[in-house]
């Protein structure tokens, strides 16, 4: 029971890891992209469309998954490149652009999801074979080890990918010179520019990579959580939770893994833990209430202060005076 609960928590937390790490990378460069939710919608619908198209082309199994993966990542990159263009090149307020991307992305997701559904006569779904690729792996010998085997070696490939992405992001940000320069751009773009670091380049690249991860988070929601079926409003606030999780994990990709899994657990708690007398619908409220409380506690303890990139949310223009 507990093991099942933990496994389900990891499965529910994985897209949060992806989106949170993506947003951490973006925010490290000083850009705050509030369009995570919209980017996830776009990634979700693009990956589904990619999968369906690949199936039509006669691909199967991992081929479909690969196309779906690329579509999800690419759509996220395009969306965030648009965000970058609006904020970095055209210097529009980052909050506003992020919100537009959320509204537009939600629209695009639902629009094409429904359009594909109409085309397929009712609702759209991938084949069972494709679904199988996105369900858990089985490593002979390892996966059957009781408890540990189940806890560590039973997930789908995307879970391992998201953990790898978090580790890679951590390593790059904290241990490499690229990370040091990225931090400098986010902390003080004027200093970074004077030191010869291209603020524009770093912000674009960070936003686009972050967007790719958010797109993949959307793909996860669609292909894994909803097993390749378009569900209206399928992201349901995961993107915004990721924005909050960035704060909880103090802009640290490693911490984001733990925070995401805790929130994954909150999301699926209703199915596993029954508290007598408690209205089951309170459970669905839980992640949002907990998020609110944690945001408040973080602000009271001022833990975010030391980690927040100093220039977060400010557009940079060298000749501004």
């Amino acid at each position, binding site marked *: 029971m507990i093991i099942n609960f933990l496994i389900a928590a990891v499965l529910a937390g994985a897209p949060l890891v992806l989106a949170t790490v993506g947003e951490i990378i973006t925010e490290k460069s000083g850009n705050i992209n509030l369009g995570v939710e919209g980017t996830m919608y776009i990634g979700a619908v693009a990956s589904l469309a990619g999968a369906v198209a690949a199936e039509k082309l006669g691909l199967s199994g991992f081929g479909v998954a690969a196309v779906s993966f690329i579509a999800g990542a690419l759509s996220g990159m395009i969306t965030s490149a648009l965000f970058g263009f609006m904020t970095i090149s055209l210097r529009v307020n980052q909050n506003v652009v992020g919100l537009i991307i959320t509204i537009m992305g939600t629209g695009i997701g639902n629009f094409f999801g429904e359009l594909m559904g109409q085309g397929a006569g009712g609702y759209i779904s991938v084949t069972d074979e494709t679904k199988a690729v996105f369900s858990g792996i089985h490593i002979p010998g390892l996966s059957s080890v009781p408890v540990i085997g189940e806890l560590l070696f039973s997930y789908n490939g995307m879970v391992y990918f998201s953990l790898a992405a978090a580790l890679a992001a951590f390593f790059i940000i904290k241990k490499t010179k690229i990370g*040091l320069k990225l931090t*400098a751009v986010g902390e003080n773009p004027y200093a970074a520019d*004077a*030191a*010869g670091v291209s603020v524009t380049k770093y912000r674009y690249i960070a936003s686009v990579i972050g967007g790719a991860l958010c797109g993949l988070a959307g793909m996860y929601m669609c292909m894994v959580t909803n097993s390749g079926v378009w569900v209206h409003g399928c992201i349901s606030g995961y993107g915004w939770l990721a924005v909050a999780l960035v704060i909880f994990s103090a802009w640290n990709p490693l911490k984001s893994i733990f925070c995401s899994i805790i929130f994954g657990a909150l999301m699926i708690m209703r199915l596993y833990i029954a508290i007598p007398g408690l209205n089951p619908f309170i459970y669905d409220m839980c992640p949002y209430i907990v998020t609110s409380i944690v945001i408040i506690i973080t602000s009271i303890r001022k833990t975010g202060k030391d980690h927040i990139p*100093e220039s977060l949310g400010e557009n940079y223009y060298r*000749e501004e*005076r």
Partner: protein
Amino acid sequence: MEVVLETKNLCKSFGAVMVNDKINLTLHRGEIMAVLGENGSGKTTLINMIGGIYYPDSGSIYYENKRVEIRSPKDADRLGIGVVHQHFKLVSSMDAVENIEIALSDKEYKNKADIRKRITDVAKKYGFTVNPDKKICDMSVSEKQTVEIIKAIIKGAEILILDEPTAVLTPQESSSLFNVIRSMKKDGKSIIIITHKLQEVLDISDNVYIMRKGRYIDTLKTSETDENELACKMVGKTVTLQIARTSYEKKKTVLSVHNISCLSDDKTVGLSDVSFDLKSGEILGIAGISGSGQKELCECIDGIREVTSGKIKYYAEEGNFDITNKKPEWRRKNKTGFGFVPEDRLGMGLIASSDMVDNMVLKSYKDEAGAFLHRKKAADIAKYLIKKLDIATPGIHTPVRMLSGGNVQKVLLGREIEAGRDVLIVSYPVRGLDINSSYMIYNLLDEERKRGTAIIFVGEDLDVLMALSDRIMVMADHRIAGITDARTVTKDYLGSLMTDTKGQVI
């Protein structure tokens, strides 16, 4: 001597204003050139073009007689031009080593230890002291400047440009900086110093390049000129650099501060056990490295920062008040005569995006009863101030952020002088202003002194403080390092007090 840097007909405009109009400058190897000009004369724009921050509208730059394009700070680095800007370009959450690391390409260094060694080598060679592993945010202003200079040298700067380097330093720190500059000159480096302080020009430079209102005026050999000639060329007319100091006789104490302490914004010590008396008709100058508690002191007296211990007493004509922690609302109701011109004029003293009328009622809008805002009286005051202080503005409904720095200050000072009939607190009132505006403000303050107002003047230019004030109080490390008579004190003594953190009261 060999020419290393030359600009030909550099032009740059911002909006309709031509801030650099056909600037030709020639710098030789091993030369220390002072670029002299008032605030707003275009000095900083010029070096920003040489440093790659701005791109010129037209004109060209030659390095060692070859034409070069400098489109970014990186281009300037490659050529060997290092700029130390007035606002340091350092990442404050990182240490010195990391700040230099991001500025170097991978080929230019092996590892962190290599950078650390180079920092200590450069420091030893030119006579700096620096701790490479200290975080920038924990450094003093002078340490940060040292890091900037070392960074430029490690990056291979042959030309070093320093923008107003002494503005934030004590006299002692300035003279040790000058020693470093001289030893760099000996090493064959060329140096440009941007400044508006005449004495410094005479102390350090070989040649003086004078600018006024975006134009080139003249180049003089330092050894063949004097302070008067420089001032005259810089301002464009003969100026008397005399600050009036009228003595006011009927002195009585209007404000006494007893052992006050407070917290700063980040909850560290803001003020620690500060006591002094303030008399009518005197200007008490406050000197000190910026961030030594001046801001907190002004705000405590004005009632907008909480005093954690101690008392502030106010002796008005109507009687004596204990005004410790009395909020602005209480002060309005009891008609206390306090005026306060904060350091950040547009960000704190005024509503930047609003017009003069709305700015006039900022402190008094609650005086009249009812839910509605009454603007009529404010419009009259605005018109009166425009006339009285000769404020250049298209009208009373122009947003104040559109006005020039000097006029913004007049709006603010004008409002506060009207409010501050007993006590007037002014914080860095001439920062960023040209000489004419500065002297106009010194004269206004002297007028107020004649009327019997007690004035607290927080300043950075020790010469001005010594000429204008009656007494000078030096703050260091959030306490009083000493209170002296402005007429007899020496600059060196003030400088030594500024870095004295033990806090002895004389």
